[in-house]
């Protein structure tokens, strides 16, 4: 029974990792930027989620509002911060991104206070019994269902629509895509919008599971998501999903069984280093 519980914990955590890391992979696949400030968008999503829920009482509305606002902020971030740096060496954008992330964390602290916010009437409390003696919280179920839903829609869009084709064309070869009439600028905006919106959903969901948003809630995702996209093979969407799930489950089991030797982060990064030594291109990456 413990195994099943740990497995489910791992899958819930993995789903959240997937939602966060996917946006990062989208950005990396298109622009080759390690977008640390993505985690700040995740936190922003959490704040908007809690504030809108408290004002209107509707979680669905909160998720929608968070997606739209954070998506737009993501596009603005690309326009103001990254676009001018695309021709520079990659670590310039990386440091700029880290600086943005730190600044955002400070702004959250200054604007919303250091102790964070909670839901006044936390939605989706309680849970249901899957099999005798094993409960799943409604919140956790929502995380898994929403992740599957969003990722399938995304998979469908990228595989079967005109939009998806132009996106994939831009990733493979921007110049060629432009020559064939794809507006690569729009693809980049859309890319940042979708990636940031996904981070916002993850932020609202994490806020729901913990019933708390705080200025520092993005600090673990900021580096963990980088580890995940590298583990999956930079820019590979399927790799990112696989890596998210593996890491979620490994952390969930690892903290119980070898937690006295290594903490959660060390476990994740230890696994990452071992994998990279055998597969330097990541799990599903190509050279």
């Amino acid at each position, binding site marked *: 029974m413990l195994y099943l519980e740990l497995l489910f914990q791992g899958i819930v955590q993995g789903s959240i990792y997937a939602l966060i890391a996917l946006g990062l992979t989208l950005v990396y696949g298109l622009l080759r930027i390690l977008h640390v400030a993505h985690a700040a968008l995740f936190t922003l999503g959490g704040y908007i989620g809690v504030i809108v829920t408290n004002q209107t009482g509707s979680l669905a509305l909160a998720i929608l509002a968070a997606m739209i606002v954070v998506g737009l902020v993501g596009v603005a971030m690309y326009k103001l911060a990254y676009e001018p740096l695309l021709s520079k060496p990659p670590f310039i954008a990386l*440091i700029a991104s880290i600086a943005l992330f730190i600044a955002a964390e400070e702004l959250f602290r200054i604007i919303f206070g250091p102790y964070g916010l909670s839901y006044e009437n936390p939605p989706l409390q309680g849970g249901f019994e899957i099999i005798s003696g094993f409960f799943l919280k409604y919140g956790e179920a929502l995380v898994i269902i929403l992740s599957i839903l969003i990722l399938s829609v995304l998979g469908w869009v990228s595989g079967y629509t005109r939009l998806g084709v132009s996106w994939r064309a831009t990733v493979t070869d921007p110049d060629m895509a432009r020559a064939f009439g794809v507006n690569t600028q729009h693809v980049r905006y859309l890319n940042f919008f979708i990636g940031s919106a996904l981070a916002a959903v993850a932020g609202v969901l994490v806020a729901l599971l913990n019933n708390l948003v705080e200025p520092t809630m993005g600090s673990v995702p900021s580096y963990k998501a980088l*580890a995940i996209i590298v583990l999956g093979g930079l820019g590979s969407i399927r790799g990112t999903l696989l890596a998210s799930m593996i890491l979620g489950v490994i952390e969930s089991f690892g903290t119980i069984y070898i937690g006295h030797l*290594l*903490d959660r982060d060390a476990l*994740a990064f230890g696994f990452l*280093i071992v994998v990279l030594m055998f597969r330097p291109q990541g799990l599903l990456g190509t050279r």
Partner: protein
Amino acid sequence: MAYEITLLTTMAISVLFALSLNFITGFCGQISLGHAAFMGVGAYTAATMMKASISLLFVIPVAAVFAGVLGLLVGFASLRVRHDFLAITTMGVVFLFVGVVRQQEFLGGEIGISGIQQSVLGRTGFMLLCVVLAGVFAGFSLLVKRSWLGFVFDSIADNEDVSQVLGIDVAKYKLFAFVVGTATAGTAGALYAQHYRFVGPDSFGFVESISVLAMVVVGGIGSVWGVMFAAAVLSVLPLLIQFVDDYKILVYSALLFSMMRFSPDGLAGIVQRLLNRVRNR
């Protein structure tokens, strides 16, 4: 006077630490997001030995060797993974380091090691030692930069594959850069342990690794003078901008961002452009 001595010691240790990363990232072009781990290895080695009343002058070389050995291991990793993959691998190293140290009773666990006794040098003597060590390594860096070795590093930083074709033993020079850089970081760590007389797992984490990388990038990657200046200023900047109090970190990150956004080649780049303008007049 005591305050100035403390300030100068802090600056000298930061300069040495930043120059050690500059050797790897600036000269050889190998990015590291986990450089604080090597300072940590040096600091913990030194702290444990100094608690056993071993003299500082003997402790420093041992700390350098310990950090250098770990650096050699990570150097081997750099032969397997490149660019962004290397960045994340080195980031992994710092999380592993902190994770392991936290769980070790003999290293003080979460609490760290405190109560390290002052060395026989006294505060002023210790400050001089820090300044001299930083100066010696700065001189060494300048020498390397102008020698054939500097050209080899330039070539590797620019394009590893081409360097290999030109007959440069890329692996050897990368390992050399890693060992020298990390051993120097270990030295800085030993000085850190003596300066603060305390080491804890939170002193050598990811944030510290980013701060030192920020020093190198703000100074101007590869520029010895730029990095020295940036490290000296940035290490005491939080003390200098005390007046903005609650907005300290916000100001710091805004400065860092503006630097990257408007002058990605750092202070050295700004100085270079100004010089060019004067010359062309």
